[in-house]
């Protein structure tokens, strides 16, 4: 075991943030901006150093994990939270790819952001993001996780709105932050639920798990179940915000307004998967609430399907990838919903590689075409940019689940788990058979989604790299392969997207990935809801989880078939066909596709409009009424005052006389009545 303190890991990016922010502010007055060499070096080296720390720690970590409490954070009655870090199987995996991919993408950004006015600012944000993300996955309690949680949201806001001269980007950034805020409030209230049940200690992951074990052992689960379910639902609301699930998903496609490396890092590989991480981290709590798990499953399935379908209609290359990300996140939540948390984390892991390479490839394409993002103006790029094309095609094979590539292993694992683990049976007298086993329905949904995935990804590859170039001639002459600083990270990530799957290839007997996660997740995954109310039930007496025994090879075959079929459809659909030419600058889909794409935007719009109408009422009605009331009072006062002046006499002498009479009268009254009292 190495003696690297855990706080070093987040410290490096934090240092980077501070240094780069100072450079950015200090260099803002001069025209040239900060020297790119120094800034780039700092921006890459510091995350790289924390990656090295993570690797060193990861290789020597004991199974039970490393725990470190730094200091006290908040200490008031009812709430006592420490700043502490927890490095275990789960955070090891997350940290490895967060810092690793973060470093690679920082390297890529040096090329991508070359010559940008806000070069130093960009890397300050990226470092801040890495800091927050590391805190998110490394913290040992929910409060600190929330710090990272909002921190990444903040960085996402800053980076989406990075080119802030264009108000469209700013609006997208605002949308991202506000939608995330809705989820964050869910997270906050979820924490409060936990505090209500278990006191402030329940915010600590270890203590929470102990507390839950105590509950199970004591048979008290029933007592707290309503509150616990509420907590679970609220945390899941937080996850839907951060991981772009129904209904809080509209911000992610808009978030593509940011620079492409940002999309790759934040909106594909790391930040958006933090929802999945949270569910896995709280898996012990989630498994106690089967209803919530079913909710997660449904939401995941709907999201996966809907987003895949929406991805079919997009013309913007980044938007396709955005919807694809949402869809893949849906898969992860489906896996979490059948309490296959390790499978969902595995998909997070592989997805990080292939989606990052897809985004970086798309970035290279956009870079080559001088900012063009509309796929209808691309085509035939494979001749001009062969390396990029290869990267994208490998990543494409990974995402559609072509046998042997990373996505194949993780996606098929998820589909298999959905089929075998889901013991949710939908019953109702109005049903023909009386009961519907949901596992088949969700499996078919997943498989169908896999077909659509292959279709839209095939469409993307075909429209971008094959056929004839459809853009204007002037840009064509400038098309060039990306510089080496961009290509190296892409190639590294491509290796990842090919081979990452072999960490857990059950059919060839490798379960390395599952074993690393086992200390953290096995308890939750082995948990059976039936045991919740009856702790004495022995392990053997569990209701058998696996309802149907199917040969795993069948799943693999079906998955492969789905991928091949989807690719075939894509080739048939777009391989030869004439691609409609572009009218106007808008890349947004039209017609029925528009309705489908912006379905949830319309739902959001409803709420936004409601709030705005209430605000209008406040401003125009309530406020005016209050003001009118206020001015009525003042008017009455001044009218009465005017009336009172009648009693004043014009002449000073007369007034004096009258006041003397008044005094005399008073004296008289006092004398006659013997005092007023």
């Amino acid at each position, binding site marked *: 075991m190495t003696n690297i303190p855990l706080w070093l890991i987040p410290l490096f990016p934090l240092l980077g943030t501070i240094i780069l922010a100072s450079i950015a502010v200090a260099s803002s007055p001069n025209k040239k901006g900060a020297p790119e060499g120094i800034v780039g070096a700092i921006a890459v080296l510091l995350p790289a150093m924390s990656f090295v720390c993570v690797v060193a720690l990861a290789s020597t970590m004991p199974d039970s994990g490393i725990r470190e409490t730094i200091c006290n954070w908040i200490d008031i009655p009812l709430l006592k939270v420490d700043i502490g870090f927890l490095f275990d199987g789960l955070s090891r995996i997350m940290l490895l790819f967060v810092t690793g991919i973060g470093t690679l993408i920082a390297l890529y950004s040096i090329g991508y952001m070359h010559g940008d006015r806000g070069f130093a600012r960009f890397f300050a944000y990226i470092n801040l993001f890495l800091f927050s993300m590391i805190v998110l996955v490394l913290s040992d309690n929910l409060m600190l996780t929330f710090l990272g949680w909002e921190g990444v949201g903040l960085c996402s806001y800053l980076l989406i709105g990075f080119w802030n001269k264009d108000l469209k980007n700013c609006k997208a950034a605002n949308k991202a932050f506000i939608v995330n805020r809705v989820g964050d409030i869910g997270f906050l209230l979820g924490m409060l639920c936990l505090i209500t049940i278990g006191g402030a200690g329940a915010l600590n992951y270890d203590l929470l798990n102990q507390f839950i074990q105590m509950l199970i052992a004591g048979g008290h689960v029933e007592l707290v179940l309503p509150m616990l379910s509420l907590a679970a639902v609220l945390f899941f609301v937080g996850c839907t915000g951060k991981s772009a699930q129904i209904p809080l998903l509209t911000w992610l496609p808009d978030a593509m307004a940011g620079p492409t490396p940002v999309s790759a890092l934040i909106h594909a590989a790391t930040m958006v998967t933090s929802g999945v991480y949270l569910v896995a981290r709280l898996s012990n709590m989630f498994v106690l609430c089967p209803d919530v798990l079913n909710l997660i499953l449904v939401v995941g399935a709907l999201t996966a399907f809907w987003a895949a379908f929406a991805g079919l209609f997009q013309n913007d290359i980044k938007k396709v990838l955005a919807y694809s990300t949402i869809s893949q996140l849906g898969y992860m939540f489906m896996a979490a919903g059948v309490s296959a948390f390790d499978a969902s984390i595995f998909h997070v892991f592989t997805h990080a590689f292939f989606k990052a390479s897809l985004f970086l490839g798309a970035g290279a394409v956009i870079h080559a075409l001088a900012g063009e993002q509309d796929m209808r103006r691309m085509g035939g790029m494979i001749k001009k940019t062969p390396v990029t094309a290869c990267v994208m095609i490998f990543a494409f094979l990974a995402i559609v689940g072509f046998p042997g590539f990373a996505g194949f292993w993780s996606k098929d694992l998820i589909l298999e788990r959905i089929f075998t683990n889901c013991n949710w049976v939908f019953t109702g007298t109005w049903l023909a058979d009386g009961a519907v086993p949901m596992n088949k329905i969700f499996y078919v949904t997943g498989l169908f989604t896999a077909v659509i995935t292959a279709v839209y990804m095939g469409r993307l590859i075909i429209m971008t790299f094959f056929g004839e170039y459809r853009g204007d001639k002037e840009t064509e002459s400038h098309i060039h392969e990306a510089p080496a600083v961009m290509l190296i990270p892409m190639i590294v990530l491509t290796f990842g997207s090919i081979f990452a799957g072999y960490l857990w290839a059950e059919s060839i007997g490798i379960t390395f990935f599952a074993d690393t996660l086992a200390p953290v997740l096995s308890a939750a995954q082995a948990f059976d809801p039936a045991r919740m109310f009856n702790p004495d039930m022995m392990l053997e007496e569990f209701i058998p989880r696996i309802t149907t025994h199917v040969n795993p090879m069948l799943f693999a075959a079906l998955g492969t078939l789905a991928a091949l079929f989807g690719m075939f459809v894509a080739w048939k659909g777009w391989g030869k066909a004439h691609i409609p030419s572009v009218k106007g600058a808008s890349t947004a889909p039209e017609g029925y596709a528009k309705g489908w794409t912006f379905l949830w935007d319309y739902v959001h719009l409803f709420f936004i409009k409601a709030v705005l109408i209430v605000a209008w009422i406040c401003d125009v009605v309530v406020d005016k009424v209050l003001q009118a009331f206020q001015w009525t009072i003042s008017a009455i006062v001044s009218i009465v*005052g*005017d009336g009172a*002046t009648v009693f*004043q*006499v*014009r*002449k*000073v*002498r007369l007034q*004096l*006389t009258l006041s*003397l009479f008044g005094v005399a009268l008073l004296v008289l009254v006092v004398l006659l009545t013997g005092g007023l009292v």
Partner: protein
Amino acid sequence: MELQPIFIQLLALALFAIGIMVAISRRNLFFVLMGIELALNAVNLSFVGFAKTLPDTMSVAGQIIPLFSIAIAAAEACVGFAMVIFIFRNRESIDADTYSDMRG
């Protein structure tokens, strides 16, 4: 005949009445002010008169308070005349009846 305290009070009353009458009946502001001064001094006189009637231990108050009141009267006269002069500069008149601006 010994000086009866009531005589002093009667004198004070007469002076006070004269002062008030002057203040009320004259239109010239200077006379108004002088009337007020007269009334004030009548009160002082009344105080001194009472000081004479009361036992020694308590009569001190009756002698001290007029001192205060004289000082205040002096200050009041200063301020009052200053104001009259200012008003006169503005209006070119010291007729009290023309000053009706204070009425709302």
